[in-house]
C-alpha cells in the first residue's frame, strides 16, 4: 500500500511536471520569432543618435523572445550539472556572438539572413545530436563542445547583426547603441538562462529527466531541423 502510494505520488509528480513543461512550450511558441516586431521596427526606422535605453531593451527582448537562441541554450546546458560549467559555456557563447555582432554591424559585413538563420537552426540540431552522443557513435569521438559552442556563438552573432542591419542605422553613435544592444542581449540571455536552469534543475530531481532526456534531445534536433528547413525554404523562394 505504501509502495503503491509512493509510486503514485512520483507518477503524479511527473505528470504535473510534464503538464508544466507543455504549458511552458506552448507559451514559448507564442513568443515572437527571431524577427523584429512592428513597434520596434518603427522605432529603429525613426531613431537618430544615441538611445541607450531602447537598444538595451531591444537586445534583451530579442534574446528572451528568440526561440532559436533559446533552443540552442537549452541544448548546451541540458547535460551541464555544475554552475561553473554553465557559466563557462555561457561565456563562450557570449564571446562568440558578441564578436560577430559587433564586427558584423560596424564593418557592415553582409550575410544573407536566411542562410545565417538556417545555420542557427543547424546549431540546435548539432547540440541535440551531440547530447545523444551522436558524434561518439558516428565518428568515434566528441568534437570539443567548448570550441563548438564558441563557433556556433559566432553564427548566432551574425544572426543578431543581420536583424539590426535591416535598418541601416545611422552612423552617429552607432557603436554606443550597438554596445547597448549587445549588453541587452547578454541581460536577456542571463534572464532566459536562469529561467531554463530553474526548470532543468527541478526536472533533474525527477526520474522523468533521465527517462525523457533522449526524447527531449530528439525533439531538440527536430526543432532545429524545422528552423533549418523553414529558413532554407525562405532562402530558395526569395
Amino acid at each position, binding site marked *: 500500500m505504501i509502495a503503491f502510494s509512493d509510486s503514485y505520488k512520483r507518477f503524479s509528480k511527473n505528470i504535473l511536471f510534464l503538464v508544466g513543461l507543455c504549458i511552458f512550450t506552448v507559451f514559448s511558441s507564442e513568443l515572437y520569432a527571431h524577427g523584429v516586431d512592428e513597434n520596434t521596427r518603427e522605432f529603429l526606422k525613426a531613431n537618430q543618435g544615441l538611445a541607450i535605453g531602447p537598444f538595451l531593451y531591444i537586445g534583451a527582448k530579442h534574446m528572451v523572445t528568440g526561440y532559436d537562441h533559446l533552443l540552442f541554450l537549452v541544448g548546451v546546458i541540458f547535460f551541464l550539472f555544475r554552475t561553473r560549467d554553465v557559466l563557462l559555456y555561457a561565456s563562450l557563447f557570449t564571446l562568440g556572438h558578441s564578436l560577430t555582432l559587433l564586427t558584423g554591424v560596424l564593418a557592415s559585413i553582409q550575410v544573407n539572413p536566411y542562410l545565417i538563420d538556417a545555420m542557427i537552426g543547424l546549431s540546435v540540431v548539432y547540440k541535440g545530436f551531440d547530447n545523444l552522443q551522436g558524434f561518439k557513435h558516428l565518428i568515434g569521438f566528441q568534437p570539443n563542445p567548448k570550441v563548438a559552442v564558441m563557433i556556433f556563438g559566432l553564427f548566432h552573432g551574425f544572426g543578431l547583426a543581420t536583424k539590426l542591419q535591416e535598418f541601416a542605422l545611422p552612423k552617429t553613435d552607432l557603436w554606443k547603441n550597438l554596445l547597448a544592444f549587445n549588453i541587452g542581449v547578454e541581460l536577456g540571455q542571463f534572464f532566459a538562462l536562469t529561467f531554463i536552469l530553474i526548470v532543468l534543475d527541478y526536472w533533474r530531481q525527477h526520474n522523468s529527466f533521465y527517462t525523457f532526456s533522449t526524447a527531449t534531445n*530528439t525533439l531538440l534536433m527536430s526543432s532545429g531541423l524545422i528552423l533549418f528547413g523553414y529558413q532554407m525554404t525562405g532562402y530558395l523562394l526569395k
Partner: protein
Amino acid sequence: MNETQTKLPSSKTLLLSSLIATIIAGFVLVAFIWPAEYGIDLTGLGKRFGLIALSGKPKTYNVQAMAIPLPAQNMTDGDCPKSLDNPSTDESKWQNTVMIMIPPKQGLEYKFHLLKDATLEYAWDSDGAELYFDFHGEPKGDTTGYFKSYKEATDHHAEGQLSVPFDGSHGWYWENKTDQPAIVVLNTKGHYEILGLR
C-alpha cells in the same frame, strides 16, 4: 561533457532518434510551416486549417466583379481643341464608357444586345495587366450553348468595329489570370442595348 553517469544512448536509439526527429521536422515543415509562411500547400492541410491565410499571399481579394458606367469618353486625345473646319466631333464621341472590375483569377462577361447587321464600334484598355479575352456572340433564343467567336487573344488593349452576323447578345469574356484585380475601361458606340455583366 557528460560529467554524470547518464546512460549513453545506443547506436540503435541514436538512429531511431535521428529518424524520428527528421520525420517530425519534415512533417511539421511541409504540412504547417510551408502553407502558413510561404503559401506552399502540398498536403492540403494548410487550406484545411486555414493556414494559407497567414502566408501574406492574399488568395481572396475582397473584390467583386462590377461594372460602373462612366461619362462617355472622347475618342480623341482630351483637351486639344478641334478644328472648326471639321465639325465631325460628334462622330468621334463614344456613346458609352464603362469601367469593369475583374477580381483576380476570375473571368466575366460584358454583353450588348444587337440586331443582325448592326454595328458595334469598340475600344477597351486594361489597367496594364494582359487579359485573356474572347469577343463573341450568342444567337438570340439559342439554348445549345453555341457561340461565335470574333476575336480571341491575350492583350491589354483591343479596338475595332463589328457588324454582327445575327440577332443576339454580343460582347467579351475577359479572364484575369493575375493575383491582382484588373480594371477594364470599355468604350462603345452603335445601335445596341446594354445587357451588362454576365
